[in-house]
């Protein structure tokens, strides 16, 4: 059976890569909810287990999941967050994956909210929602109450990353293709970090990641990704 739409979709996907390689906007106001600039001193932050998946792209472009890289990335991001204790603030709580069982609804709802923020606010352009007036103005309302009740935290940080890396064969193919005048994508990072006020459900800070560089597999380069992801993360004073 042939599926014409999938064929058309493939060529449009190539355009998608161009979008992914777009430079990250670094405007402060875009990342902050109106009226919000910092967290109160002594506020508690809970870091929700990051949702990450790392892939290796083989010579032919087939993505393969890499469990070791994903595990390393999870450790590196955690370490990266720990190293920024100053930025994150005094009281930082973690949640275990198994804690998320009872928080599944909040997690999936936040995912849907983050997708709309990513699409309509961070990517913006023709996808902007005019009624938002260019403001980061989204809230989960009282849906976050169970998370607050469980942790006692004032803010929650959600992180989502999908990351792919060119394998050596892929890199060789890229070089060869480049010599023939053809560019092929080597790999990309897309993701977001989202800070939610657990007292009223507002997304108070949001940052997205869309680029063709970055390496979460090793500790040092991973810190760089975390730096970019958390650029402008509101301090607590």
């Amino acid at each position: 059976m042939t599926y014409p739409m999938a064929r058309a979709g493939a060529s449009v996907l190539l355009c998608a890569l161009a979008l992914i390689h777009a430079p990250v906007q670094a405007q402060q106001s875009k990342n902050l909810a109106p009226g919000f600039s910092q967290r109160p001193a002594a506020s508690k932050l809970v870091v929700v287990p990051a949702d990450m998946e790392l892939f290796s792209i083989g010579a032919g472009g087939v993505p393969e999941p890499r469990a070791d890289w994903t595990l390393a990335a999870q450790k590196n991001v955690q370490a990266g967050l720990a190293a920024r204790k100053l930025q994150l603030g005094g009281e930082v709580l973690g949640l275990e994956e198994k804690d998320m069982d009872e928080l599944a609804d909040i997690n999936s709802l936040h995912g849907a909210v983050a997708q709309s923020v990513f699409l309509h606010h961070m990517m913006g352009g023709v996808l902007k929602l005019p009624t938002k007036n260019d403001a980061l103005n989204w809230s989960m309302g009282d849906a976050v109450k169970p998370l607050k009740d469980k942790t006692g935290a004032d803010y929650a940080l959600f992180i989502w990353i999908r990351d792919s890396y060119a394998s050596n064969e892929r890199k060789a193919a890229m070089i060869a293709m480049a010599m023939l005048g053809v560019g092929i994508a080597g790999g990309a990072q897309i993701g977001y970090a989202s800070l939610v006020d657990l007292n009223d459900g507002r997304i108070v800070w949001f940052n997205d990641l869309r680029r063709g560089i970055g390496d979460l597999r090793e500790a040092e380069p991973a810190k760089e990704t975390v730096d970019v992801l958390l650029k402008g993360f509101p301090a607590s004073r």
Partner: protein
Amino acid sequence: MKKILIVLVLAFLSGCMSITKVEGEQVVNNRMAVKVTDAWNKVSAPGTQQPFDMWTQEGLTLDHLRLWAAIKPGQALLVRPAGSVPVGQKAARVPTYQSGMPLDQLVNLFEVLYSADGSMVSMTKVEPAVFAGEKGVRFEFSVTRKGDDVQLKGVGWLSQRKDELYAATFLAPKLAFFPRLLPKAESVVRTAQIKG
């Protein structure tokens, strides 16, 4: 990113999609007028022309208000995107309006419509009501979205005049969003009037 996002990104890139502000007097399909006091965002995708207008407050992965006006007998309530049918296969049925359909059957069309993507749909209330000045029905339903497991709540209104169907549905996440946004949807739907 999840499938919904990919589809939207692709639509955006194909230069298909545009989002405009709608407020004040609006007309759906030249046949149904509504008054919009709190502005909404209208999403247009000229590529696949759907028989409904789609508006949103918070974004396409969150809520939508769909408006159908003057749907004719034999017309589908939803158009499957081009290329979704494999070569050599007959297309699956889509919910289609027929003249003389009783109210319960019209409600069933929306049950089928919202389950088309594999989501679980359940009608929780169906009662007579007036919509767009004609006797019809108001229904409440719940949807568990296949793509990301999010639980949504919905309300729908429909009526007929001279063998043409008029309808509206509002859907939003059950937690926080539905209760907060329903009044905005209702304030639009309340003002619906058939033209011509």
